[in-house]
């Protein structure tokens, strides 16, 4: 029998690692992600294909502008941009949509058994599934351009995904909480993400950036994550581990902070009548 006990401040003791609860949470996550995916293609002719059409169109724009107009000399430019776009889009949608996690899901959070903290996780998971859907196309590009893809290093990709997953979720928690206090967070985050898109080197090489700005670029975790994908998939080299380890440590510190903040804010939000 499950037992719940709320004390002052509303904390309740519960076996967190109760097997039944964990498996139920997974089922719930699956339903929420499934719902997001279904809703996305329900009322459109092309359906789930949009997850591919969008980055491909972006890719065409960048290739046209930078390859043919500005004649950039980055090797394997389409693969280079497509890798960046897919990874960046995952980050972008995760953060942008997580920002609304609390505010847009009041009805769900007001259900007694519902764990609100699952919402950003489901958003990030949905984005990840889109990334997975797009993977075969990316692979096609890589093979077509015969990049130096290193099969042995491919095992790092899941680790990179896990890292980005944790980073996005913790940032998502923070943004969603901030959005409860300040409703303009969701508008601001759109602009900031747009700016970051240009500063992350999605369509150009970081090594072309003047040296005095290098530190600024190095502080952006997505620069390292996208860089790591590219070194595995395009140049076939092992990504430099130090920045990734630092990001992992920071994410793991950020996660419990964001989680706590999120839980407090979502509780506060549903109390407001």
């Amino acid at each position: 029998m499950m037992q719940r006990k709320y004390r002052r401040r509303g904390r309740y003791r519960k076996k967190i690692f109760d097997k039944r609860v964990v498996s139920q949470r997974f089922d719930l996550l699956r339903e929420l992600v499934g719902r997001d995916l279904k809703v996305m293609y329900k009322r459109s002719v092309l359906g789930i294909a949009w997850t591919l059409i969008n980055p491909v169109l972006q890719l065409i724009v960048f290739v046209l502008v930078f390859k043919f107009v500005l004649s950039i000399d980055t090797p394997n430019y389409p693969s280079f941009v497509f890798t960046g776009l897919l990874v960046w889009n995952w980050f972008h949608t995760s953060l942008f949509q997580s920002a609304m996690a609390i505010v847009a899901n009041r009805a769900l959070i007001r259900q007694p058994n519902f764990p609100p903290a699952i919402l950003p996780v489901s958003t990030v998971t949905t984005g990840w599934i889109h990334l997975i859907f797009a993977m075969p196309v990316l692979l096609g590009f890589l093979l077509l351009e015969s990049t130096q893809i290193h099969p042995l290093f491919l095992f790092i990709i899941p680790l990179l995904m896990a890292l980005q997953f944790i980073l996005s979720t913790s940032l998502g928690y923070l943004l969603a909480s901030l959005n409860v206090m300040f409703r303009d967070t969701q508008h601001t985050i759109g602009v900031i993400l747009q700016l970051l898109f240009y500063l992350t080197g999605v369509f150009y090489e970081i090594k072309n950036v003047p040296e005095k700005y290098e530190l600024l670029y190095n502080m952006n975790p997505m620069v390292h994550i996208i860089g790591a994908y590219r070194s595995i998939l395009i140049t076939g080299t092992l990504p430099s581990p130090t920045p990734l380890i630092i990001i992992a440590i920071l994410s793991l510190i950020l996660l419990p902070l964001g989680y706590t903040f999120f839980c407090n804010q979502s509780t506060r939000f549903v109390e407001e009548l």
Partner: protein
Amino acid sequence: MAKAIIVESLGKRFKRYHADRPNTIMAAVLGGFKRLKSVDVFWALRNISFAVEPGEMLGVIGSNGAGKSTLLHLVGGIGQLDEGSVEVHGKIGALLDLGASFHPDLTGRENAFVSASIGGLSRREVKRHLPEIINFAELESFIDNPIRTYSTGMKMRLAFAVAIHTNPSVLLIDEFLSVGDMRFQSKCLDKIRELQIGGCAVLFVSHNINQVKSLCDTVLWLKSGAIAAIGPAEDVTQQYAEYMRENAAESPTSERQTQVVPSSQSLAPQAKQGNFQSKDIVIESIRLIPGFEIESGQSMTLEIGYLPLKPIHNAHFGISISQSNGNICFDTHTAQANFKTGTLQEPGTIRLVIERLDLAGGQYFIDVGIYEATWSFMYDYYWHMHELIINSSASKKGILNPPLVWQKV
């Protein structure tokens, strides 16, 4: 067996914020962060203690804003307590905000699946229960249509069916009986009874006293965040009904933006300050001419007999006609017609002539009140003082039955 719900000296505090509390980052930075703090706090609930045993149904009654829903949510683990503790043993099923989590573009089946998962069922359990849920909701032929094509009643039926099939051992119900038609409602009640007999503890919030009385074993009456009474359903509902009758003046007068203080003398004698129902002038009688049963559209005269106990200058007389559920169909008073009563010293009669009473057929009641000249308190008031039956050959639906003609042009 152990209790299913134990609530101990629960307290819940709400904060009131500055009216111009910044709610954008920009405003917060410009205005300084000081106005982010709350200006004062009030207790929505305080010192609430009760327990519910498995198989018991506890009714929660009280007027709007008494804290009923807040209590239900806190028991459901939504929101934080500021004092005391809540213990819930077993899985919570909730009939709160029914259907609010449905997505309009998904089909009934898909929504049922998501809702049941939110309700705490595993995938396998949902699969097993889904036919049962659809069958209960009587939506077999619509289940694969998007929810946006459903009527409100259909949505409610589906939401209820899902909630009731999550095998709860503690059930929280908030005013659910707007669900579907009478037949479906009684089906829901049967299902709730069935769960209850199977050992489910039920916490039932309702405004419908008769329903609470017939369903619940014990009733908790909340009054502005505190327990006014808790005990056997019969006793508490009766006390509550009496209290409500005496406070019935509250709604019509508040519409007039006046400050009539509601009476609560029989329950809280210490609160009586002579500020309400001063009885300086009392209503002695009411007469309906031609009688208490008239034809729709007929004229009617009402005579209020009053007895001043001391000279009263310019009192207002008010009359309203309401239905048994408290709906006010018609409300008028002397001040509206600019009618001055002058100084009242002797017993007398005030007469209201209604030239046509175009109400639809049915049972109504006459409410009568005498108010102080500035509306600051009432001298005397009777809710449902006299019955009024209106006969009509036309439909008994609706409230109005005006003279009318159909024409083809």
